[in-house]
């Protein structure tokens, strides 16, 4: 009986000890993990989380030219934003712009990557050329396109005139300007996308192709059944990054059109810039920035939820 009772007493004691040790171990692991994360947490807090919180705070205020808050207005900045025809137009242009640039950039880059993946003599030269736009800054590329788009002296219009067509007001006609910015952006993004996709292609195991060859598979069959599925993680990465980049386009707009003509290229990031640093309305600029954050968050979330199902990881 007494033996029994001691046994009963002892069992919970050792259990408690075991729990405690486990807890202690977890705490230790946790603090060790935090220690490793600390540098990035500090950096993120200073450069991302604090500005994010500050932006949300600012979006409920009106401000003076120095950005100091003056009047608390609650949701008014958001209400004004959603009822402003300029902002709604800017949202529409942004989505159109994403639609114009993302698929075309990826299709062209994928095509270039597939042909540059062939083992030919001097292929290094072509790979360098195809990825070369990566080495050009947004400002330099924009100035170059500004010249190409010049209404009377630009090569594009001279070419059109030479074949008897009338010149296009690339950057001055509201129905063409967004298109012109999209062309510029596609051209600039091809280098980066091409390089990533080519890297993805190179890492596909060649034994897959070899066995397909033995089975007598054709070129396009291999492309559809081996290349694209094996490339899907890379493609998924590229699509996500390109969409985020397209939403954040700024440099080429500032140099080529400054949001004009008739606000047709006033994409959302440029609109934020203009509200904050031309109109000195940091409140409504912050409200727009918060909305952009939510949109990109949603888009990325949806992509991971639905797009990733089709991704085949090795």
């Amino acid at each position, binding site marked *: 009986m007494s033996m029994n009772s001691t046994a009963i007493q002892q069992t919970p004691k050792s259990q408690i000890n075991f729990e405690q040790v486990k807890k202690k171990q977890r705490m230790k692991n946790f603090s060790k993990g935090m220690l490793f994360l600390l540098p990035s947490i500090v950096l993120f807090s200073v450069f991302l989380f604090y500005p994010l919180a500050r932006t949300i705070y600012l979006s409920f205020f*009106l*401000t*003076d*030219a*120095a*950005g100091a808050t*003056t*009047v608390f207005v609650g949701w008014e900045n958001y209400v004004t934003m959603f009822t402003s025809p*300029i902002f709604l137009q800017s949202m529409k242009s942004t989505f159109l712009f994403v639609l114009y640039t993302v698929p075309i950039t990826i299709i062209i880059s994928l095509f270039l990557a597939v042909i540059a993946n062939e083992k030919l003599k001097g292929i290094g030269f072509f790979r360098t050329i195809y990825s070369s736009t990566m080495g050009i800054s947004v400002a330099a590329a924009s100035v170059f396109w*500004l010249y190409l788009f*010049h*209404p*009377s*002296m630009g090569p594009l219009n001279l070419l059109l005139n030479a074949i008897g067509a009338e010149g296009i*007001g690339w*950057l*001055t*006609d*509201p129905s063409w300007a967004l298109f012109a910015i999209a062309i510029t952006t596609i051209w600039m993004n091809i280098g980066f996308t091409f390089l990533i996709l080519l890297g993805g292609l190179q890492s596909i195991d060649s034994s897959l192709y070899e066995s397909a060859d033995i089975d007598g598979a054709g070129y396009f069959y291999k492309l559809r059944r081996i290349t694209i599925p094996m490339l899907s993680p890379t493609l998924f990465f590229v699509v996500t990054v390109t969409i985020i980049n397209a939403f954040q386009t700024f440099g080429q707009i500032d140099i080529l*059109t*400054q949001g*004009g*003509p*008739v*606000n047709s290229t006033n994409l959302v990031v440029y609109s934020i810039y*203009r509200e904050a*640093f*031309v*109109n*000195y*309305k940091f*409140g409504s600029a912050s409200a727009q920035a918060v909305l952009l954050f939510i949109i990109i968050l949603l888009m990325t979330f949806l992509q991971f939820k639905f797009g990733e199902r089709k991704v085949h990881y090795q």
Partner: protein
Amino acid sequence: MKKILAILMLGFVLFLAACGSDGNADEAADSATAGAEGTSEGSGDNEKQVVTFWHSMGGAGQEALNAIVDSYNSSQDEVQVNAEYQGSYDEALTKFNSVAGTDSAPTIIQTFEIGTMSMINSGSILPIQELVDADGYDMSGLEENIINYYSLDGTFYSMPFNSSTPVMYYNKDAFEAAGLDPEAPPETFEEVEEASKAIVEANLDMKGFALQAYGWLYEQLLANQGALLLNNDNGRTDTPTEIGWTEEEGKSIFEWVERMVNDETFANYGTNGDNMVSGFLAGDVSMFLQSSASSRDVIDNAPFEVGIAFLPHPEEKERAGVVIGGASLWMIDGKPEAETNAAWDFMKYLQTPEIQAEWHVGTGYFAINPAAYDEQVAVDAHEEMPQLNVTVEQLQATTSSFATQGALMDMIPEGRKIMETALETVYNGGEVDDAYNTAVDQFNTAIEQANAARGE
């Protein structure tokens, strides 16, 4: 293989370490010089007093300005002015707002005329009136029309520096080819239309007229009709609450442009002034409106003879004249007295006739000090390029009124964007009534919002 890799890695680490220490050494050197500067400010006797001058002059203007700063630095050995280019006026102002009140703030900053109200409201500037009074400096020697803009209730807040007005540039050779008199440029909206038609008839590859979609030019075309931009006397007697122009005055500009668009004599360069100027130089358009500050550049680069004329006005209105554009120099508050005084000395140096003559001839900006026009450099240049004189005549022919004194309010940059959008709508075949009414609504809303943001 692994060994080689290890050596390589080690090499990288050493390389990075070397870079790192290099950076540290630089920083150390920087802080050392900063320290030296600090002590020099303290002693002030044998070391030079440093004045930091932020400006927004690019291209030819920057060259001319640097030459002036160099000449000042070598003219005496007590003050060293460091001129730093900070991008466009907008960009410089944004940078200034983020450093205002700290040690990184400059001693002098150049800001465009429409930034006047935000600078006064910012509370981080020292009105130069205080220095004028303390020093007994006589501001009345400076150009009257320029002084009118920068004085508010008899107080000077900033020192005018680079001032310009809009003028009409035209291609004399093209005028001659079209049978027009190159010495009698069109003066009214209607005459500009007629001349444009003649130009296009004579040369199908050339358009008649270009108006950059630029809010400043719209303001000037309003002022030239004697119209106000904002109510309460352009914001000079009280804070504006709405627009100051009448529908007739505001619409006349849009209708003028629309008529030329319909005649197909109008060249649309959108908001891009550089494209417009290069189009003019290439002979694609025969007339355009632009700041007189470009005159030296345009005259020097054109392969034909360039004429400069007064800003056009509607036929049924008297010409009222133009508003002074450009920028002024602001003294930043909270600097040591020695530094402020050194900066003030530099400001006075800039206003001397010799320097103003050099500045006027080198750029096409006005001489703030009219005595500069009697300097030999200016006389010679006017003889060689009589066009430079037109800009001066136009300013002196301006009748002083609230309209030509120019508007003061902190929302003007936003207002300009609104007018630019409206102008572009018309350039692209939009309805004048729609574009105009939308613009007026947005303009009034912007004024309301700006007043609300100040808590008024």
